[in-house]
């Protein structure tokens, strides 16, 4: 092998190795924020006595919400027959009010100074329910407590598979044919929030918030929510909303002895499921001829 040959070979190998090494800097994928709030599995500690107070409010949406996008169900006709107008449900806005926002107490202290994370809670005996109906998850956002059973049902005449992709809990993937009995699962670490998808119907998405405590709520179609059983104290309340980069809005809330506190949140159009191009310096070339379907 002469000198010129060696130079060529070394150059190509160096180029390739350089390319590979620069890619090893930690590839990141966007996803729900992992949250260690409240610790992992339930631990010992003073039992939470509960309270009579509430934190309530309304979640608003500023600006023009994105129009729901039609879902093509041709790959599985059962979905189209049962739910002919299936659309995306990541941004549901009615009269300026935003549904499907997960609101929870992240941290704080009750009167007397004891931190909320120092308490322990009993796991609810009743299972939370997640149904697959019309090739769509209901509810879209589900809140449960650590180790609380989640009963998953399939109301469709087709098979689904349920595939949560947590960061702190164990990942699993299970098929549920039509007519199959409910699947019961639980997560043993708190995590806000775990994405759930169906690999057979890629548009099907849900999120499960797993909390150590029961102090959480999901905004309804009117944007309203209410967290019950809150004793007097100072808390950081967080509103979490799904998106390419899920958005969290914290707010300091004081619950007084009279027992009711208000905390309204608002999200804007800019924070919707807008795509944040990962290569800002390289705007995508537009291909107007490439229509979707």
């Amino acid at each position, binding site marked *: 092998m*002469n000198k010129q*040959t060696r130079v*060529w070979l070394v150059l190509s190998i160096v180029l390739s190795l350089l390319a590979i090494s620069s890619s090893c800097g930690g590839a990141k994928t*966007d996803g729900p924020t992992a949250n260690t709030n409240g610790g992992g599995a339930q631990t010992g500690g003073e039992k939470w006595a509960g309270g009579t107070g509430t934190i309530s409010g309304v979640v608003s949406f500023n600006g023009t919400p994105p129009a729901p996008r039609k879902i093509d169900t041709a*790959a599985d006709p059962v979905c189209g027959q049962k739910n002919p107008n299936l659309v995306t449900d990541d941004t549901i806005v009615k009269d300026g009010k935003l549904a499907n926002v997960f609101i929870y107490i992240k941290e704080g202290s009750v009167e007397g100074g004891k931190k909320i994370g120092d308490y322990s809670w009993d796991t609810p005996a009743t299972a939370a329910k997640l149904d697959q109906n019309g090739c769509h998850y209901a509810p879209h956002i589900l809140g449960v407590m650590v180790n609380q059973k989640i009963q998953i049902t399939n109301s469709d005449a087709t098979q689904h598979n349920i*595939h949560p992709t947590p960061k702190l809990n164990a*990942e699993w993937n299970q098929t549920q044919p039509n007519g199959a009995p409910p699947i019961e699962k639980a997560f043993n670490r708190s995590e806000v929030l775990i994405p759930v998808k169906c690999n057979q119907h*890629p548009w099907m998405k849900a999120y499960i918030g797993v909390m150590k405590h029961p102090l959480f709520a999901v905004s309804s179609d009117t944007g309203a929510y209410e967290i019950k059983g809150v004793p007097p104290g100072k808390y950081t309340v967080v509103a979490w909303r799904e998106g390419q980069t899920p958005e969290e809005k914290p707010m300091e809330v004081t619950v007084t002895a009279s027992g009711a506190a208000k905390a309204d949140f608002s999200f804007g159009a800019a924070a919707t499921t807008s*795509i944040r191009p990962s290569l800002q310096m390289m705007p*995508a070339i537009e291909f107007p001829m490439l229509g979707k379907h």
Partner: protein
Amino acid sequence: MNRGLNRFAILVACATFFLIIAGALVTSHDAGLATPDWPLSNGQFFPKMVGNLFWEHGHRMVATTVGMLTIVLLIYILAKEKRSWVRKLGVFALLAVIAQGLLGGLTVKLMLPLAVSSAHATLAQLFFCTTVSLAVFTSRSWIEARRLEEEKEVLPLRYLCTAALVTIFMQLILGATLRHSATWDKQLPVELVMTHILGAVGVTLTLGGAGLAVLRRHKGEKFLTRPATIALSLLLVQIFLGVAAYSTRLKSPGDPQPLNPMVGITVAHVACGALVFVSTIVLTLRTYRVLPATSEHSTWAARPQESQVI
């Protein structure tokens, strides 16, 4: 030379190319976990192929067919082929397709870890390389190839082509890693995208250099210029497909589901990448077949045994 064997080897290579396309469709549709079990799909040999199960189970069916064809190819080679190294390559092809099947099962069982999925995609290209090589080695043009001379004091083409081949293979590994690093609803990692672009520059330089050198030095020698022309043409198409694939993939996280433009163009990019790879393999093998290891005529003449190796 057995014409039937060569035709069958070409058939297996074509089936492998189809399998690569089927695999790429699985990735683009995020269908890899449409069934959590393996080798059965939802506990059945032939499940109802609706939704993404169509892509995943379809891929398994094509893979099974290719596996069967590879077994038949090995039997054919053992029966008809005298060259021991070709027989060994046939055995290697079977081992590779078995390993590939097991790797496919492993990636499903482990829920698509990046390393295993990328290894599965990379081994697919290596298996394709093997089947194409078998088709080349059993062809009439390979058997009847006549020796050519290299120009004096130039870098031998076989090394130029080898450099291009190594660079393309690295780029294929990068591409496989990039594709499996994020599903359609998430943005691709910037670092990997940039690295893949850098790799494309490397491929363009090395393959462009090798291909143009072949066209310049051996004008009229179709045995070499044909694969070189095909490789260069495919490289050009591949660059455009890469830009288009990036454009559609950039938008896909905002889509409600994997849409046809993104799926079609991305799969075409994978398929064209495989074709660039194999056309460069054909070119490289042929340079080793007919060209000397150095540009000095005396060295070539001193190694007559090479010309007898068919």
